[in-house]
């Protein structure tokens, strides 16, 4: 490493120059950037300032997430806030740091240069976090130094002199607790442009970490900073959670509780949603005259959307759990405990969190791989995440298991045959992930030696607001998907199942366009025990796995042979047991999800990995289904 590698000449100091007199008070800030190190509570502050008026996107061209939102000032004016990624420094080495640097210096064409900066630091770890203040202040943009976690600092006996710190830094300072909403008036005052701007100060050489740290320590002691006592509760909890025996037991209990809740506690809620759709569907059927449009609306659209919406409670419960684990700080301990086990397949503890999330949905799981700094570990995690049994597979599994496996007790009253089959499919997906990871990490994704660094944050109570916002966000994505992708696929399917018309009447299903497509691919899927109807389902499920249910519902509904039967009986008549198991195996392995393909392309920055992944998973699905169809008859 060169210590004099940039424009900040070695050994000398840089003086910040604020823009001319007037500064922020003359021109009120319109675009304000929020930046801070990881675990500084930056996102909590952003959520508090913007609430529901925020959106998540990507910075164009890179894989860095861009959170933007509108904050309303007490006087009614609005401020545009950009939440930048959590960084320890501004030296552009990682993509996150590069984006943060480019945004702050106005070098990104897609983002306006911020007129002011909110720098969020953890007041309980001031000296180390102040290191980031040097590069930020040297940008010369009006900056408010926000010392977060004021409540922790106070409770643990820490102290500092805000005025002296402000004078030392040459920038306004606010001590707040973003979680509790304490001290927010100072932030609003700055945003409104009414905060006095102290004189510029000398700053250290930015590239020299030891010098920056010395400077930060000196500033801290000038401001009479007294570090708080060690967080007693964190120490106490860690003695339990990282206990050689109790720790792993808690870990297993937590994972078990997550699954127990999403599979058992979610059932009444899911039944409730199903009831709502059944009742409203019956009402619609009664209100509309018997026609093609009615069959489209009721059997196609409403049932299709309903079959997916049923899973909303489950997805939300899982995200609730993951949100609580993450915000409380336990997830970092879970990553620590899981590290050794993950290392056996060539991954690391940080991969555990995305893989656990992937049991709900691969899309947010793949987005959460951002915490993995090692690019190869990250790609390997992205590639195996879709093997985890996501909630979109559940309706398919549930339907086929219910249609083919009679309910009986396997292990006393605890495990019946259907639950055992479901468990088996979970294990199957998990094994596929483990084997794939092993293969990838010993071949094309063999890692260099980037050290594994995992900061252990103090335990904190998760806030209702932060968890609530996350759940709201997830529901929005889920409903939108059910409302657009699945609706669209259902309507298209319905249309191609009704052309070409024969003598002005809709064709028999096997003579329709959909039937023709299905019969064209039938030879390819025959070895798997699937007929052309399943074939159409496989094609539509490329959009999203659960679509196959609405598709089969539509096809069986139009087929005179199965018309009037419910879906479960219809599929039972249409598939052999071998074909049913093959279908289950196919769904366990195949990457039938447009959203996942899109997010992999976005996160890996190109088509190479999603194409490879899709090809690999499809081949595995075909081979697995082929074996299943020939072993089970």
């Amino acid at each position, binding site marked *: 490493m060169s210590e004099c590698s940039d424009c900040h000449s070695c050994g000398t100091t840089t003086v910040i120059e604020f823009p001319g007199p007037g500064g922020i008070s003359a021109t009120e800030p319109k675009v304000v950037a929020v930046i801070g190190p990881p675990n500084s509570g930056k996102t909590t502050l952003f959520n508090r300032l913007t609430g529901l008026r925020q959106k998540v996107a990507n910075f164009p061209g890179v894989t860095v997430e861009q959170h933007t939102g509108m904050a309303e000032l007490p006087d009614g004016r609005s401020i545009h806030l950009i939440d930048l990624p959590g960084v320890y420094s501004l030296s552009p080495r990682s993509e996150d740091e590069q984006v943060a640097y480019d945004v702050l210096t106005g070098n990104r064409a897609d983002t306006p240069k911020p007129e002011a900066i909110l720098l969020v630091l953890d007041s309980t770890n001031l000296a180390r976090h102040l290191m980031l203040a040097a590069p930020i202040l040297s940008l010369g943009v009006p900056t408010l130094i926000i010392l977060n976690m004021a409540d922790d600092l106070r409770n643990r006996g820490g102290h500092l002199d805000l005025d002296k710190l402000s004078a030392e830094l040459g920038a306004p300072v606010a001590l707040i607790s973003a979680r509790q909403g304490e001290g927010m008036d100072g932030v609003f005052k700055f945003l409104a442009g009414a905060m006095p701007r102290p004189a510029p100060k000398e700053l250290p050489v930015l590239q020299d970490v030891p010098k920056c740290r010395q400077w930060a320590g000196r500033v801290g002691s000038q401001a009479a900073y007294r570090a708080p006592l060690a967080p007693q509760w964190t120490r106490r909890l860690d003695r339990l959670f990282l206990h050689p025996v109790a720790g792993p037991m808690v870990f297993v209990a937590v994972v078990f509780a997550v699954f127990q809740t999403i599979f058992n506690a979610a059932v009444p809620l899911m039944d409730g949603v199903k009831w709502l759709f059944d009742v409203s569907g019956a009402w619609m059927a009664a209100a509309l005259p018997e026609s093609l449009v009615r069959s489209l609306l009721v059997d196609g659209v409403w049932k299709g959307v309903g079959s997916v919406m049923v899973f909303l409670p489950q997805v939300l419960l899982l995200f609730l759990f993951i949100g609580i684990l993450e915000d409380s700080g336990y997830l970092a301990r879970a990553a620590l405990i899981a590290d050794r086990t993950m290392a056996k397949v060539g991954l690391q503890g940080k991969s555990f969190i995305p893989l656990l999330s992937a049991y709900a949905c691969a899309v947010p799981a793949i987005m959460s791989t951002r915490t993995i700094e090692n690019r190869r570990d990250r790609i390997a995690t992205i590639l195996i995440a879709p093997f985890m049994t996501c909630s979109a597979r559940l309706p398919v599994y549930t339907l086929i298991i219910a249609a083919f496996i009679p309910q009986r007790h396997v292990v006393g009253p605890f495990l019946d045959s259907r639950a055992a089959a479901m468990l088996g499919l979970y294990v199957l997906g998990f094994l596929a992930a483990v084997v794939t990871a092993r293969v990838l990490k010993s071949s094309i994704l063999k890692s260099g030696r980037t*050290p594994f660094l995992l900061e252990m944050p103090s335990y904190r109570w998760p806030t209702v607001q932060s968890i609530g916002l996350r759940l709201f966000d997830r529901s929005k994505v889920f409903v939108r998907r059910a409302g657009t992708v699945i609706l669209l696929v259902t309507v298209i399917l319905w249309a191609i199942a009704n052309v070409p018309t024969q003598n002005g009447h809709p064709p028999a299903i096997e003579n329709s366009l959909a039937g023709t497509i299905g019969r064209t691919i039938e030879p390819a899927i025959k070895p798997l025990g699937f007929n052309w109807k399943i074939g159409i389902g496989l094609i539509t499920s490329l959009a999203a796995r659960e679509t196959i249910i609405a598709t089969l519902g539509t096809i069986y509904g139009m087929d005179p042979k199965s018309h009037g039967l419910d879906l479960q009986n219809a599929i039972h008549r249409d598939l052999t047991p071998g074909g049913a198991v093959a279908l289950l195996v196919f769904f366990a392995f195949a990457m039938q999800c447009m959203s996942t393909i899109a997010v992999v392309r976005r996160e890996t920055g190109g088509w190479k990995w999603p194409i490879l992944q899709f090809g690999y998973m499809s081949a595995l699905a075909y081979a697995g289904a082929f074996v299943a169809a020939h072993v089970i008859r």
Partner: protein
Amino acid sequence: MQLSGNSSQPEVFPATLLDLRRGDAAVLDSIDLPGDDARRLMEMGFLPGTRVTAGLSAPGGDPRVFQVDGSEVALRRETAKRLKVRLEKRPRPGGGKTPRT
């Protein structure tokens, strides 16, 4: 890269973070890792001259949490052994691990 905090003085008890048992503290001397990795460690608080205390660990002792500069950071064994320290006190006699010389 070799980042030396105090290279003029001979080290009395050269050791690495790996030699610290839970509760042991030592002063970090140098980081024997490539530039960017060393820098990341330094940004997390592992600066030469800083006191590092060994804390709890995952089952089996790997990775281990270290208390440094007001934070707790977990490192794997392979990384911990690249961080050279000066021991502040003699190792307890008869202890499981003794510093390598």
